[in-house]
């Protein structure tokens, strides 16, 4: 790691102001992605601004038809404390116990790893990302590989998930890291039917044909015969693009089978 300064502001406004100082600072949440990148010298920020303990980013609460989760909530806190069963299961499937105890929802979304689990939950439920300056709908947030709609210095404060009528998540885990080789989130919410896929492309994406089919009939059988072309899917040492295309169909059906409401 190259040297850097470290600051831990006590409030959100102070954190954003610290970002506006000279140099090339970075926010630090759980550090479970960022510290690895710093060790590899893939990044050399002038300062780390630790936002993990900001009160504005903490806590999980119910707000009408929305479940609102603070961006600094850890995966473990979500696995134990959110009332959308599929989302709790998703958070509990991330990495391993130690990573779940440190890694955060906001860090995972800001990082936008092509195989990030939380991206599937946020896009699949049609959540909104509330930042220090605006509200970004999930459909506009995930821009590309490790790329989001966040502006420099913008902080994710909380995520508001509409409570679904039913939702399910199915993934095939990479046995070494826990990251999904492919993960599919299916949800029926008051804003409509949504199917989101992670691990298979440059970043999470929706499957409109699958959504239409499930809107007509919500059953695994309704998805029979639907295929995603392999052309643009990821290929790496873990899986070919063709295998990922096949997994999308299998996991979408499993997610539908596993659909439950609130826990």
């Amino acid at each position: 790691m190259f040297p850097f300064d470290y600051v831990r502001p006590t409030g959100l406004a102070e954190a954003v102001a610290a970002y506006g100082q000279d140099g090339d600072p970075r926010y630090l949440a759980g550090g479970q992605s960022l510290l690895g990148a710093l060790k590899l010298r893939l990044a050399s920020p002038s300062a780390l601004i630790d936002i993990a303990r900001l009160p504005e980013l903490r806590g999980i609460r119910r707000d009408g038809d929305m479940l609102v989760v603070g961006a600094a909530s850890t995966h473990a806190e979500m696995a134990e404390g959110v009332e959308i069963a599929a989302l709790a299961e998703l958070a509990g499937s991330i990495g391993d116990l130690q990573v779940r105890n440190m890694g955060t929802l906001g860090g995972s979304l800001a990082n936008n790893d092509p195989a990030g689990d939380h991206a599937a939950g946020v896009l699949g439920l049609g959540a909104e990302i509330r930042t220090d300056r605006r509200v970004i709908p999930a459909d506009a947030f995930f821009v590309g590989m490790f790329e989001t709609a966040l502006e420099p210095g913008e902080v994710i404060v909380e995520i508001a998930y509409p409570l679904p009528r039913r939702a399910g998540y199915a993934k095939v885990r990479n046995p070494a890291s826990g990251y999904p080789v492919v993960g599919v989130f299916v949800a029926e919410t008051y804003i409509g039917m949504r199917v989101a896929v992670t691990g298979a492309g440059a970043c999470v994406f929706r499957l409109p044909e699958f959504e239409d089919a499930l809107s007509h009939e919500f059953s695994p059988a309704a998805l029979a015969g639907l295929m995603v072309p392999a052309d643009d899917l990821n290929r790496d040492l873990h899986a070919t693009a063709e295998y990922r295309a096949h997994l999308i169909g299998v996991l979408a059906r499993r997610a539908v089978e596993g659909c439950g409401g609130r826990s």
Partner: protein
Amino acid sequence: MRISLKVNGKPVEAEIEPRLLLVTLLREHLGLTGSHVGCDTGQCGACTVHLDGRAVKSCLILAAQADGRSVLTIEGVADGETLHPVQQAFRDRHALQCGFCTPGMVMTALDLVEHLERPDEASIRDGLSGNLCRCTGYRPIIDAVADGIRARQGGG
């Protein structure tokens, strides 16, 4: 920068560089060499300690992130010469051979014994998935964790 934290119940003050890892603070500044570095990339779990009561990988945390918080290492687990029931279970079950992974395994096991909802074998295996062991084949470790859970549930 200056940090103050609790390590194994005792207050610690240290003057550190911001990029210092928690595991380096523990091993090199405080002489607590029980937390091991197997990979330095967050894969092996040998460096596992507790931060405010939850298992975390100390090679993937800055010492600065532990400022004002409470750290428990393997050195703080036994009560004098009396092993913690989880340590005793590791000993009874022969859950260690070379011992390199053991401090991290015990620290993860302590979190599982405290927090596991369903203490069945699948949950224990899943809970240990962030800790690698090159010697035992895991079977005795899983048995030791199950013993630890039973000891707690039996009031032990």
